[in-house]
């Protein structure tokens, strides 16, 4: 990983996230939902880098940035840290399973983003519920998490195409597909 350009990428990703977060779509089942752009960046890096620790450190950084930008859930002030932990764990999972997919394909990216977001957001919502004692909000927050995950997965191939174009700036060594013996 090229870490200095990656820090700039985090800054840009958070700004884009704040912009799309201000333009939510409302559904009766899930309430307001918006896509998680930083999750797509984390998935893209987990699919692209060679070293799993690079993927997890990058995911931690993106998750921590998101933690700083998410201030409340279910009426309680949220703690900083759970999103970073959830991103790290989910990036580890994606790194492990990526060989089972043709990861350049759009539907594979969408599916892996869906898995990533479901892990991250359900973990985050549950951890924040425990930490903030906001038990009553858990059900509605999980529905929202599912809505956000689906929305993110739908737009993931498009964002990944954009990231693919500029990936040389922040990824030094690309992962190669394992050869079958």
């Amino acid at each position, binding site marked *: 990983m090229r870490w200095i350009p990656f820090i700039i990428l985090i*800054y840009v990703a*958070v*700004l884009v*996230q*704040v*912009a799309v*977060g*201000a*333009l*939510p779509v*409302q559904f009766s089942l899930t*309430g*307001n*939902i*918006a896509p*998680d752009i*930083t999750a797509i960046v984390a998935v893209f890096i987990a699919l692209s880098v060679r*070293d799993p*620790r*690079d993927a*997890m*450190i990058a995911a*931690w950084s993106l*998750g*921590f*940035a*998101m*933690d*700083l*930008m*998410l*201030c*409340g*859930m*279910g*009426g*309680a*002030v*949220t*703690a*900083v*840290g*759970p999103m*970073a*932990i959830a991103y*790290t764990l989910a990036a580890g999972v994606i790194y492990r399973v990526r060989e089972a997919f043709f990861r350049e394909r759009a539907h594979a990216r969408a599916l892996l983003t869906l898995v990533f977001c479901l892990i991250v957001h359900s973990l985050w*919502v549950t*951890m924040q519920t425990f*930490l*903030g004692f906001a038990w009553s*909000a858990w059900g*509605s*927050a999980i529905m*929202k998490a599912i809505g*956000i995950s689906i929305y993110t997965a739908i737009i993931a191939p498009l964002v990944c195409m954009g990231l693919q174009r500029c990936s040389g700036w922040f990824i030094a060594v690309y992962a190669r597909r394992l050869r079958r013996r």
Partner: protein
Amino acid sequence: MRFGFRLSKKTVLVGMLVVAAITSLLGVMVSDHLRMPSACALAPVSNYVKASTSAFKSAMVDRETPAMSASEAARLRREVDQWRSKADECNRRGLYWWKRCRAIQHTRSAYRPSLDTCELIPARVILGEALPYGQSQTVTKGTIHGVKKGMRVIDVLTDRSKALPADDRMRAITDHAPFAGKPITGSVLIGWVEAAGSFTARVRLVTDKRFKIDAWLQRKIDPAKPRKVTTTTPEGLADVFLTHDDVYDTKGKENITTTLSGDGERGLITNSISRDYNILAGDWLWTLGQSAKLPVQLRIGEVVSVALSDENPNFVIAKVAPSAELGTLRDIFIVRSLVSQLPPSKGGK
């Protein structure tokens, strides 16, 4: 420069996870101290991002007005003329009482500080939530500008109010009372300061689930449709019909107070209003004006739907749409009440 040790990626990763675990467990003790500097770091660029998203949302809001027939327009014009003549009469009477009040206030202020004013700290919204789990906005004023946790935050709704000179704008915002006949004000409550850093503060919006406020309800009665309500008379409970004029009379000024809370999405909700009051969509909710933090009556929102409560059929659940367009907030005011700055009473006459 060389250190005596070399950090492996594994050590860095473990260290990061330990930091995340510690900050998670410390919770709100550290979260605000971390979030405020990060908001400052984003502020130079996020200000423009917020401006763009606000402008985009404003452009997307459907403001289409339904068509009106010529006869209906003529009727409305006649009604407006009638109301204008009534307003002139009220203004004349209001002017007389305003002069009397000024004389009394002048006497009173000669002996102690005025209780009736608020200072307004103008602020600009620069950042919202990254994902719609919560309902907060970050603004560009902090403790060095006098912002403190718990202060109420308002928005000036109308362009007409915004166009006023600064002094008049302050007066329009802080002196307003719904029945006092003041000519302008579109100021509305939008939330309170949840956390204040040195240069930025986080405002929790009225739609947040943690928002709770006591409010009073003002009926808005259609002149063509008197409203039947159950009220207490000397003979006991009785059904009476309220007309449009009664709203400005003692008969219509029942003290209907309730507690409003945010629904966590786009509105507010109340479930403590008796069905006898027969509240309907279109009625307004105002702040009580008795709080030390907000000693003025400001509009909160408008009832959009009313349904009987499942738990207690004697009460109704009313959904309230906030008067402010919370998605497009940019320039807002933080209310610094001077009531709390009074010197403590020394007792005696």
